[in-house]
């Protein structure tokens, strides 16, 4: 910690550096780092072979595929519809727009268990929506994707909205005056500008979806190899008194989260640099 302070570049007259940074570090360590270190601490009790076997067990692997696949699919759905919704909310006027704009935050404010129960009953074969489909939605991977789409929607909409808003109309005008039609302007001019925001929103929704538990357990059906998500495997292992196994799988998820956050930060770093160059 001391090293960090010595390397401080500028001297500023603003006080409170050690106080606030110290407090930040301590609070961060107590609430986040110390508890998280327990995951690794507990995994150490396993031999490498045991660890490897646990995390590559066919059921675990199937759950990674499902969790990542469903989170990815939900992210993609949200990219398409989230961008459209952001576009509609920024560019068009229509009655009820304000209310709709506010309600986009709903998945954020609604407890995930409530969302899970509500979605399950809607999309079950005898539910309001489910009855119109010949195939099952709840209790299949499709149901998981729906729950994760619900959870992730605000992230895309809320990252794309401000960028779309700040897009200067001059570029669009220039593009149009050079003879591009509206579609070309969108794909060649607007979309590239939106891309970093879309990617960030996608990564956020994706990261959140990977860990989601509350809403998914209700709608998933929880069949091993088919509709069993990774957080559920952790729970299952815990309920069989297999702590080491649970923490081993948790380690895999933690590493995945680290990597994802890193990617998000990279995207933003690249975007910021591009922005600064302009």
């Amino acid at each position: 910690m001391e090293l960090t302070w010595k390397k401080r570049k500028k001297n500023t007259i603003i006080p409170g550096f050690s106080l606030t940074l110290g407090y930040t570090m301590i609070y961060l360590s107590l609430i986040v780092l110390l508890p998280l270190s327990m995951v690794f601490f507990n995994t150490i009790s396993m031999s490498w072979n045991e660890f490897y076997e646990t995390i590559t067990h066919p059921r675990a692997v199937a759950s990674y595929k499902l969790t990542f696949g469903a989170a990815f699919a939900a992210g993609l759905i949200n990219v398409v519809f989230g961008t459209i919704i952001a576009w509609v909310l920024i560019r068009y006027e229509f009655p009820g727009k304000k209310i709709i704009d506010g309600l986009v935050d709903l998945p954020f404010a609604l407890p995930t268990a409530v969302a899970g129960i509500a979605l399950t009953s809607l999309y079950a074969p005898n539910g309001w929506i489910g009855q119109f489909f010949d195939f099952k939605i709840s209790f299949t991977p499709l149901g998981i994707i729906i729950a994760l789409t619900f959870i992730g929607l605000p992230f895309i909409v809320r990252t794309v909205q401000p960028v779309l808003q700040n897009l200067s109309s001059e570029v669009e005008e220039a593009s149009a005056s050079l003879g591009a039609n509206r579609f070309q302007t969108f794909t060649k001019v607007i979309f590239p500008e939106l891309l970093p925001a879309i990617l960030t929103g996608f990564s956020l929704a994706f990261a959140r979806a990977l860990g989601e538990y509350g809403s998914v357990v209700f709608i998933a059906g929880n069949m091993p190899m088919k509709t069993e998500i990774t957080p559920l495997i952790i729970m299952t292992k815990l309920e069989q008194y297999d702590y080491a196994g649970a923490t081993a799988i948790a380690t895999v998820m933690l590493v995945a989260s680290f990597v994802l956050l890193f990617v998000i930060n990279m995207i933003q770093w690249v975007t910021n640099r591009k922005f600064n160059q302009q």
Partner: protein
Amino acid sequence: MAKLIDINQEASASISTTSTKPYVLQEAAWIKWTLITISLLFLTLFLFLPLVSIFATALSQGWNTYVASITEPDALSAIKLTLIVALIVVPLNAIFGIAAAWAITKFSFKGKNFLITLIDLPFAISPVIAGLVFILLFGAQGLFGNWLFEHDIKIVFALPGMVLATLFVTFPFVARELIPLMQMQGITEEEASISLGASGLKTFFRVTLPNIKWGLLYGLILCNARAMGEFGAVSVVSGHIRGMTNTMPLHIEILYNEYQFTAAFAVASLMSILGIITIIIKNIIEWKAKNV
């Protein structure tokens, strides 16, 4: 991840302007209305219908059953516990958020980005793991388990454990809201205040706080919404003792498992109302922030 949640603000702070644009910059009417229809349809399927179904089921057996289910003692104690947890968690994370934002935005030091990533971390961690780590720490077999048992201090399966798990899950919210905001505002005003002889604390209250108050409030609201709604992490550390360690989301699950679907949805609708109020307050704040 600098734009985790903060974007909401800029987003809706700017919704208003849809000026008349040159023809070339507008889509054909049919495209416009197709897009609007798609949006509405999508939102209906994924947002409105779930919400409506909650209220429909909650009220399916009449208003009296509804009131009875949310005023029943176990429900009331769940509501109380949820509020207590939120009341402890939100201020603690707010103080942290302000301290962290101050350190990160007013000074430059090595490893800042790493620190920001660490602060973001709880956001990307599964709530199940968030609960598990506190069991590993304070559970009877955990690091401090024996010591706690001997001294008769209960952390997991009691209020402190639930507070800790909620603190963890809502950790980044206030900090993430304030950091970009304070970054944008820079340090010149504070420097001026200090060089005029004001103390650090005075500078914070007189100069910084007025600048960030709407952002701060918004962060508090998000933090609060998540704190009240958290299910996975709290479920791991709660112990599910009726009337004692059940928060509202857990109480909903219990009712649901007792085949009291109407009651479960009644409590759920109460939480949805809280969520909607949150959104309304948020919009008022944004509106004020814009007009200050």
